[in-house]
């Protein structure tokens, strides 16, 4: 099966700093692919290139057979790639329901349609009963789920999650993992995620890539990668592997 997302040799420099160094990866349809690595390894920059925020200096990105690099962020979303932000950005003055409706309006032009679709999504993410609250009033875990819900409302084929587990307690992490698994299995959403919380990575990812100083130093199944000595040395530490 050909890859849904194909990143080919992308490089990104910021005025002398090499943020991403010739990284290639392929995400198959229906997969959950994780990108891990120490801070500053270039993970978010890589993400931002897929999402259209930055243009790669070299290399190209293909999604569902189309070139993705060169598109603006809104074009990328319309092409079928949703994303969340590392520091959550819901629309604070809008209600929970309206946040999702804005997303749904991309695919449902009528307000009534969009609202119905949003209710379904809110239910899936356990936010339905809070739908009239303002987004700014929510707790962090709720806001994180809201941001994912909003991205899902745009009906993406590929979802980019940027450290969506950050700041969540273990029970909340498990809840989010379960929601993402449902998303992946029942609704066939392919997921590419950046994550530090190894618990979530091990539970979710079918394949993992490790970035260090902008370059890929390992790639493979989670249990393999986690034992790779280079990875242990640069990121995980011997204790994390046990």
């Amino acid at each position, binding site marked *: 099966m050909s890859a849904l997302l194909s990143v080919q040799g992308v490089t990104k420099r910021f005025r002398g700093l090499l943020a991403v160094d010739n990284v290639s990866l392929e995400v198959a349809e229906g997969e959950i692919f994780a990108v891990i690595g120490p801070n500053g390894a270039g993970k978010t920059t890589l993400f931002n290139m897929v*999402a259209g925020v930055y243009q790669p200096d070299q290399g190209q990105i293909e999604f569902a057979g189309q070139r993705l690099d060169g598109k603006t962020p809104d074009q990328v*979303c319309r092409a079928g790639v949703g994303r969340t932000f590392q520091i959550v950005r*819901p*629309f604070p003055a*809008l209600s929970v329901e309206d946040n999702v409706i804005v997303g749904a*309006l991309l695919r449902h032009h009528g307000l009534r349609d*969009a609202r119905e679709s949003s209710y379904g999504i809110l239910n899936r993410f356990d936010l339905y009963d809070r739908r009239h609250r303002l987004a700014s009033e929510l707790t962090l875990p709720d806001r994180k789920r809201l941001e994912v819900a909003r*991205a899902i409302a745009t009906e993406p084929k590929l979802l980019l999650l940027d450290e969506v587990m950050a700041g969540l307690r273990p029970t909340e992490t498990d809840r989010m993992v379960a929601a993402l698994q449902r998303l992946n299995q029942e609704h066939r959403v392919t997921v590419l995620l950046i994550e530090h919380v190894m618990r979530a990575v091990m539970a979710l990812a079918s394949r993992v890539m490790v970035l260090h100083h902008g370059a890929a130093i390992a790639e493979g199944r989670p249990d393999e990668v986690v034992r790779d000595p280079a990875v242990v040395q640069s990121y995980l530490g011997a204790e994390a592997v046990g």
Partner: protein
Amino acid sequence: MIGQLFEGVPARALVLGGLLLGVLVAAPFLVNDYLLTVLIIILYYAYTGQAWNIMMGFAGQLSLGHALYVGLGAYTTAALYVHFGVSPWIGILAAIPIAIIGGAIIGFLAFRFRVGGVYFAILTIAFAEFARVGFDHFSWVGGSSGFFLPVANYSVSDLWNLRGKPMMFYYLILTMTVGAFVICRLLLTGRIGYFWLAIREDEEAARAIGIDTFRYKMFAVILSAGMTSLAGVFFAFFYNNLFPEQVFHISRSIELILAPIIGGIGTLFGPVLGAFLLTGLSESMHAILYKFGVDIPGVKQVFYGLCLLFVVIVLPHGVWPWVARVLGIRERRS
């Protein structure tokens, strides 16, 4: 569409709104000429406030040069009327596109080239100033000496050429204001309204969910510019004289934005309330001072400045949200 207009509006708001409208419709028969003129000014500011509110309150772009569109609308229709005898109703077919082109240029410069926030505001000021100086040298429309419309016999109400008694102008501006209100309500409760709010709240996040922010910001700018130009048409035919120094001056731009800011940016009723408060208070103050023989230019503006200061510091969301709370009306979305 009628349903969309009234959906989600609490009964109390409908009743109060209806009462207000009723009073306004009956006003010419209830008040004297002076008060009628004051009401015309109030409605004028309510209308321009609504138009400005679309750019600022909905799309989040601060324009401090809105007088540009007033002036373009005013001069275009006035010139066509004076030089070619063209009725202003036909004239607006030229005035609106001209204002829209002005807005589109500013919007394009600003949005394509990522000029935001303060830069955008400065750009709008610069364009208005450019027009002010430019029209000062534009002799076909009178230049700095002014452009004058022939003042006809006031006993005849000629709606086609907008010549007539204050009462005719009153109903005209009342219709325009109600129309603006309805248009804003329809837009806000529709798809475009949601996108605008998203853009205003967080433009980058809006883009991440597929909203073409450039297109919707441009639409807000163009709509705002076009609507404001109609205010210019009213201005030209009501006051019958135009001076670039007055029409395009930054003071006009600032006066324009006082009502919506004081009333409440981004709200539907804010500009209307702001206009009533501001003009009502300033006229009362002026009348009181006049009784004491005080008639100094600048006092009114200091008063405006103090009002603005008060609102910005104490009620940053404007007076309307507070009033709405007191009246028990909850506007569903801010």
